């Protein structure tokens, strides 16, 4: 197979005895590199879908009630008759957009892709601890993506007219519509909104499968990091990428099961008539006899995952950018140990702050105070990380690859999004801005920008490792600048919309015209600007997609170590092979950040180069 072309002849033993079929190589592959690419392609597809959904509902927000061929083209007469979006579908689009972005693009896609590609390669391992479980984790992810995508097409309790047998899905139009947080009772009662029928059932099934896949994957990552590090790769010589993936996986293993139980209880309330989340409810004129449950219980369970989730999304991005910034500033990352400490502190604290999403649910104010305290503590390790990035750039010799641009922009957006978190964490202030566009601005800048920039940075940087070819740099620049300007143009004005008091998840802000024309003018003007920027940013992504797919097939062939980087993946041959390295595994003698070390001939020293005589480690 491929490795035969390479000039290495001492293959690993298990390399000899089988030719791989197409199916075992490209589909049911157990090779971590292929699985990583499968995650990436699936996530890119889901990301494009979610972005398109956001453009659809942004059109409604900017020009409420105006007819648009574009809406009718994508949504048909059912959901956009005469080109005007239906109220219910607005909520459906927002819900699936958020769900896909958070879970499928940034959890499955970001950590799935890069944990897979980089953990074995940067640790000097032949593969993940269990190739089979790794494959399973991808297929669970794929299946759940498919179900989530199909849920967009639910109509009269069936998909494309195909009825699902059984009692649990005969009603409902459209996908889940209760927001990505799917709070009951709205999500529990098919009578309350049309998406809470079969669409919501599919959401829950999809997420259950997603969680199973994510757990299998995370366990595998943890075991691999603990057990399969090559000789000399001590924990404190691991690249920060691996530290980030490691802590991310631990967060996932500890928090996703809680979401699973929340989802299972919700399913029981929906299908088995239990009352975990329901009490004293009358929908329309139908009186339910459920009594004793609490909708707030769901929120506690949800956010016990939900908050760690934002770090599950963010930490891998920070890990990737640490690596990219050090490499391209040609400098060691400043404060390596403090960076590890911050990752661990963030990981730990992220478990005891979930209540900041619930300040105004009527929780005991004292409990609220505790969550204010723990939440604001997280700002400290976050600040340390920012200052360390900035110091890393200081007196560097910065090379602007597209990856580096995205990594620096990530730091900028991490600051911009982080500081508004200080407002939201302060319960007294959260009263005024909770659930407004201020929140939407905040979480898009940290997740929609920082984490997504981290993902782009990772793709540009490791593309040569994944596809053995180079992406086009100039197109990368164009993509970066359009995305940065576009995304800031979308999310920055949202702060003002929010502080002016605009609630989120509103289908039409022209209701402001009835009582406050000042706010009306401000919100409607800014909504148009935001949508125009969103369309520009979306078109910018076409450049990326083109560059990505074109380069897979036609990009120039990559050299072994294109960015002159220290980590082990660049010591592996360009050609992919089972087992990653021909012959023996590399041995590690130093940390990964020996860039521009005084006394060295080159401005980088890979980790597998022994210390020179008299050289001290760092």
């Amino acid at each position, binding site marked *: 197979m491929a490795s035969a072309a390479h000039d290495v002849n001492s293959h690993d033993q298990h390399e000899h005895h089988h030719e791989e079929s197409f199916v075992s190589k490209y589909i049911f592959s157990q090779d971590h590199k292929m699985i990583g690419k499968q995650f990436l392609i699936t996530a890119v597809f889901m990301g494009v879908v979610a972005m398109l959904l956001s453009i659809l509902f942004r059109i409604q927000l900017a020009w409420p009630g105006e007819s648009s061929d574009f809406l009718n*083209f994508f949504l048909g007469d059912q959901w956009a008759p005469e080109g005007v979006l239906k*109220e*219910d579908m607005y909520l459906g689009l927002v819900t699936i957009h958020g769900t896909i972005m958070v879970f499928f693009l940034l959890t499955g896609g970001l950590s799935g892709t890069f944990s897979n590609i980089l953990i074995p390669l940067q640790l000097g391992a032949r593969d993940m601890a269990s190739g089979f479980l790794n494959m399973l984790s991808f297929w669970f992810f794929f299946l759940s993506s498919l179900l989530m995508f199909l849920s967009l097409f639910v109509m009269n309790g069936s998909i494309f007219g195909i009825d699902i047998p059984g009692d649990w899905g005969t009603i409902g139009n459209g996908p889940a*519509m209760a*927001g990505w947080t799917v709070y009951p*009772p709205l999500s529990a*009662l098919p009578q*309350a*909104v049309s998406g809470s029928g079969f669409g919501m059932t599919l959401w829950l099934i999809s997420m259950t499968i997603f969680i199973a896949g994510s757990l299998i994957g995370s366990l595998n990552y943890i075991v691999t990091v603990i057990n399969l590090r090559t000789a000399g790769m001590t924990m404190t010589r691991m690249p920060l990428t691996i530290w980030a993936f490691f802590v991310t996986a631990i967060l996932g293993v500890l928090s996703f099961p809680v979401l699973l139980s929340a989802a299972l209880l919700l399913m029981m309330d929906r299908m088995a008539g239990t009352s975990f989340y*329901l009490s004293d409810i009358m929908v329309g*004129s*139908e*009186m339910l006899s459920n*009594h004793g449950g609490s*909708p707030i219980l769901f929120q506690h369970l949800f956010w016990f995952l939900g908050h760690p989730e934002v770090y599950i999304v963010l930490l891998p991005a920070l890990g990737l950018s640490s690596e990219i910034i050090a490499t391209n500033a*040609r*400098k060691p990352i*400043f*404060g*390596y140990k403090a960076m590890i400490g911050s990752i661990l502190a963030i990981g730990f604290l992220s478990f005891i702050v979930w209540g900041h999403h619930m300040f*105004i*649910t*009527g929780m005991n104010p004292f409990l*609220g*105070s505790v969550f*204010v305290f723990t939440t*604001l503590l997280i700002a*400290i390790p976050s600040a*340390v990380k920012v*200052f360390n990035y*900035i*110091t890393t*750039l200081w007196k*560097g*010799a*910065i090379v602007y*690859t597209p990856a580096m*641009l995205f990594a620096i922009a990530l730091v900028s957006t991490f*600051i911009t999004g982080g*500081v508004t978190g200080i*407002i939201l964490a302060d*319960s*007294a*202030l959260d009263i*005024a801005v909770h659930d407004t566009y201020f929140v939407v601005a905040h979480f898009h800048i940290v997740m929609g920008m920082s984490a997504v920039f981290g993902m782009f940075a990772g793709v540009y940087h490791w593309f040569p490792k994944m596809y053995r070819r180079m992406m*086009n740099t100039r197109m990368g*620049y164009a993509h970066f600048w359009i995305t940065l300007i576009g995304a*800031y143009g979308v999310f*920055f004005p949202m702060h*003002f919309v929010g502080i*002016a*008091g605009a609630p989120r998840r509103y*289908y039409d802000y022209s*209701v402001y015209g009835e009582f*406050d*024309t000042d706010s009306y003018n*401000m919100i409607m003007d800014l909504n148009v600007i935001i949508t125009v920027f969103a369309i520009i940013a979306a078109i910018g992504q076409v450049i990326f997609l083109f560059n990505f797919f*074109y380069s897979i097939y036609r990009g120039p062939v990559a050299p072994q170590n294109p960015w002159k980087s220290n980590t082990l993946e660049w010591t592996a041959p360009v050609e992919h092979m089972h087992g990653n390295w021909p012959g023996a595994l590399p041995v590690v003698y130093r940390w990964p950040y020996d*860039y521009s070390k005084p006394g060295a001939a080159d*401005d980088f020293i890979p980790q597998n180069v022994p210390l020179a005589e008299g050289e001290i480690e760092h």
Partner: protein
Amino acid sequence: MESKLIIILIIVIGAIAISQLVRVYELTAKLRKHEEHEIPVRDNYLNAMLMLVFMVIQFGGLIYLMIKYGWTGRGPAASVQGEYTDWLLDLNLILITAIFFLTNFLLFYFSFKYVKRPGVKAYYYPHNNKLEILWTVVPAAVLAVIIILGLQTWNEVTGASPKEAINIELYSKQFDWTARYSGTDNMLGKTDYKLILGNNELGLMTEATIDSSIHAMRHGAGGILDIQKILNNRDTVLTDSLVNVLRKDLGTKERLLRLLNQMKATHNPALDKQVYDDIIQRDTLYLCVNKPYEFSFRSKDVIHSAYFPHFRAQMNTVPGYGTRLKFTPNMTTAEMRKIKNLPAFHYVLMCNKICGGAHYKMKMMVVVLEEEEYNAWMKGKESKNFKATYFPAPSAQAVIPAESTAISAMN
């Protein structure tokens, strides 16, 4: 259809055009012996420059928006608690804006200044414990101040209302709000969702309302007797699924009836007068300026959120679980209209928790009046309290309109 074809055509042609351009670029790059992973010095400088340009755009954008909308664009707060919040919010905003400018400046300036110059090596600087301790301790100290000030305000705003506070209940359902004033005794009477009927939409609890609910549950349209009649009727053939639905419905109603009977057994009629003087008010919520208000919230169906943007107050309304909130309006609607120079301005109560399709329309106007005006309005309302609307006829007999049954599950 045509427009669809055109869209597809444009996409296809665009893709072909770009791929041709890229081929040309690559061929020329090959001629120049340019390798994709080696960033030309010119490109490097250009991007470094753009970093600085971007910083200017970013800062300029923020300043522009601030000037255009007057700092935050939210207008003055209209309650005592809102003024505390705004003071603290402004303080925090100033602080984070300063941090934003400072750190982004350092980031972009360094990105610009330390671009790779031919022949210049980066400075090997792996760590400095003093610096790292400095930027752990300084944020911690700043945060300590933020936390202390924040919690002071939080305790103030969420603390118990003074005794003289006026009690009002806000009741949410898809997709509107109903207010209930507590009447002359300033006490809100008891409620239960099982008592909701056409003429008792808030489910207020008195001996009479319990009786009529029991009656409706048994005898009303779609009540227990109705369902039994359909199930036992041998002349009509029912599908299995309909039988299932009806059985389930019957079970629910029998359970509810049992609970209603228990309620009747334990009900204390002496409390009925607390209910009778309550005043139900739709569409507009009238408040009196400078009076402390204690709001309590109930929800009929799903979670909603009572959001008073101008008073900087917000609280979720949760089915099966009461919540509360207090604030003291300190500016009348007329005063605010003058300040904002908007003659048609209204305060508003909006729903701020996703609750279904018409979520965005779920609102109620709020009018803050001077004391005399308010008292005058209240005088007119007192004769329309619950007792007067529930027993409209001189005979003290509750009316049970035929369509006022709780249940219409059969359809």
